[in-house]
């Protein structure tokens, strides 16, 4: 193990707290949620102890301090995304909340009966169900960018659908949570804009593995969760281009999302607070700052090459296991691999790996339509983080071989 990875591992207390028989848990489910570095954990606990007051409300010093931490989280996100202004960063409870917010605001303003919303076949349920609900409410229609056998988008079909002229919004994953392929989002954005459609990208996985510059990508909206990006759970982001965000009506009412309120009528606060009704999860949101500092610190060649080495090792070793099938083999991969093994059920594999102290995901992964498209009722997913090592990958392969032997 090289010194850089060793140093990263030293920042993650889970390695000590989850040890069984002196051996740390091999955590390979980072796509579900990341483990937390000590900086995030200690900020969270010290803010709870020392800077706890409701934000954007009171005038006393402690409230101002809490508001500063909350707003520092927002600024860290702005900087990470290279957004033009802090006002473009709406803090939410996670990607799902961000997408529901978008569906209920953009939907109310711009989507009417007969309009179309375009998503891909590779979406997480969180980027599918809110649009289905919107279609039901509005009479709009959902269309799909096909995903081919290698897991790649059929952009020609996307262009064909867009050219019919009814698509108002495209909403697609930057990186699929099942296939781990970095999708050609810049091409999609350019294409959608040519046809007059706005674009939202579900960045739940993308923000973790890619350097996201929303102005370079050109998307109108980008959402992600803090907890997959080393921040505390209950923090999330909806980035929206300011001129577009300003045209959207509020969704939830109450709290500091107002300008003035009378018994008859309310005028609303400017963006982004207009969309932050109620007391936000300000402690979690504030952890976005140390989390993003950590992200910035690990965007270095040593970490990239470790990820690459682990990913290509796993692909070649998995391909050597009889009956093992990998999904999402086309395109550029992030360190996320989903597979099935003939004659061994995904939940049995995950159960036995757990007995060997390895945490992997199994099942439908909130992507039932995509997994069904591959003719499966579930898969096993291995997703790596900056704290994983090649030694752990070797142990996974050894354990996987043992597991398959037991099950067949």
């Amino acid at each position, binding site marked *: 193990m090289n010194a850089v990875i060793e140093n990263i591992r030293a920042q993650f207390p889970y390695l000590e707290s989850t040890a069984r028989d002196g051996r740390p848990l091999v955590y390979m489910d980072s796509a579900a949620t990341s483990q937390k570095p000590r900086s995030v954990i200690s900020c969270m606990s010290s803010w709870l102890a020392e800077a706890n007051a409701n934000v954007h409300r009171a005038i006393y010093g402690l409230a101002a301090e809490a508001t500063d931490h909350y707003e520092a989280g927002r600024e860290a996100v702005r900087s990470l995304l290279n957004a033009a202004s802090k006002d473009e960063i709406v803090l939410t409870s996670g990607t799902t909340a961000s997408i529901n917010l978008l569906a209920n605001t953009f939907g109310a303003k711009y989507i009417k009966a007969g309009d179309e919303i375009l998503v891909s076949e590779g979406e997480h349920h969180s980027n599918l169900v809110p649009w289905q609900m919107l279609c039901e409410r509005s009479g709009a229609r959902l269309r799909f960018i096909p995903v081919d056998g290698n897991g790649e988008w059929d952009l020609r079909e996307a262009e064909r659908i867009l050219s019919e002229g009814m698509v108002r919004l495209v909403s697609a994953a930057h990186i699929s949570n099942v296939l781990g392929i970095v999708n050609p989002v810049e091409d999609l954005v350019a294409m959608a804009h040519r046809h007059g459609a706005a674009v939202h990208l579900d960045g739940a996985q993308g923000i973790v593995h890619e350097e996201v510059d929303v102005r370079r990508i050109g998307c109108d909206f980008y959402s992600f969760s803090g907890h997959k990006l080393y921040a505390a759970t209950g923090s999330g982001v909806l980035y929206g281009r300011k001129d577009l965000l300003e045209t959207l009506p509020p969704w939830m009412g109450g709290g500091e999302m107002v300008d003035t309120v009378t018994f008859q009528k309310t005028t609303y606060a400017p963006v982004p607070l207009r969309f932050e009704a109620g007391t936000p999860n300000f402690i979690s949101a504030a952890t976005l700052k140390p989390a993003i500092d950590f992200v910035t610190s690990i965007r270095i060649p040593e970490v990239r090459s470790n990820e690459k080495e682990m990913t290509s090792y796993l692909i070649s070793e998995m391909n050597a296991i009889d009956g093992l099938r990998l999904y999402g083999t086309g395109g550029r991969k992030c360190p996320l691999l989903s597979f099935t093994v003939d004659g061994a*059920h*995904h*939940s*049995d594999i*995950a*159960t*036995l790996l*757990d*007995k060997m102290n390895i945490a992997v995901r*199994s*099942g*439908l992964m909130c992507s039932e339509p995509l997994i069904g498209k591959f003719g499966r*009722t*579930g898969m096993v997913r291995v997703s790596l983080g900056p704290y994983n090592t090649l030694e752990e990958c070797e142990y996974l392969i050894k354990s996987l071989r043992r597991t398959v032997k*037991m*099950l067949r």
Partner: protein
Amino acid sequence: MEATVQDVQQEIVDEFSAFDDWMDKYEYLIELGKSLPVIDEKNKQEDRLIKGCQSRVWLNTELRDGRLYFTADSDAIITKGIISLLIRVYNGRTPEEILAADNSFIDRIGLKENLSPTRANGLVSMMEQIREDALRYSKEQ
């Protein structure tokens, strides 16, 4: 005298206590799973499918002479092994016996994590289904 639900549960707990490590325990479960009679494909009715996020379970319940008989199947072999333990405990019992029983023996043999209430865990849903069927039949009688 006929063995009670508790007797059979204790018997299973004793059997499992003989295993030194998890490997042996799971190998035994896998063996049990493989030997559980498979339900005919034509009897795997959609309305008897308990669909879970992790695994799928089919359960057929029959009432004969006031007693319930179960046949079940799963696509996951460890789940099937645990199903065979449940069937061993509950087959041929009256609905009242089933409603009065608890399943803590699963915990006592160290398989608790298989019963975690994750979304639509097939096995947990199956135990609920057994109780629901027992409740329905106890009312019909």
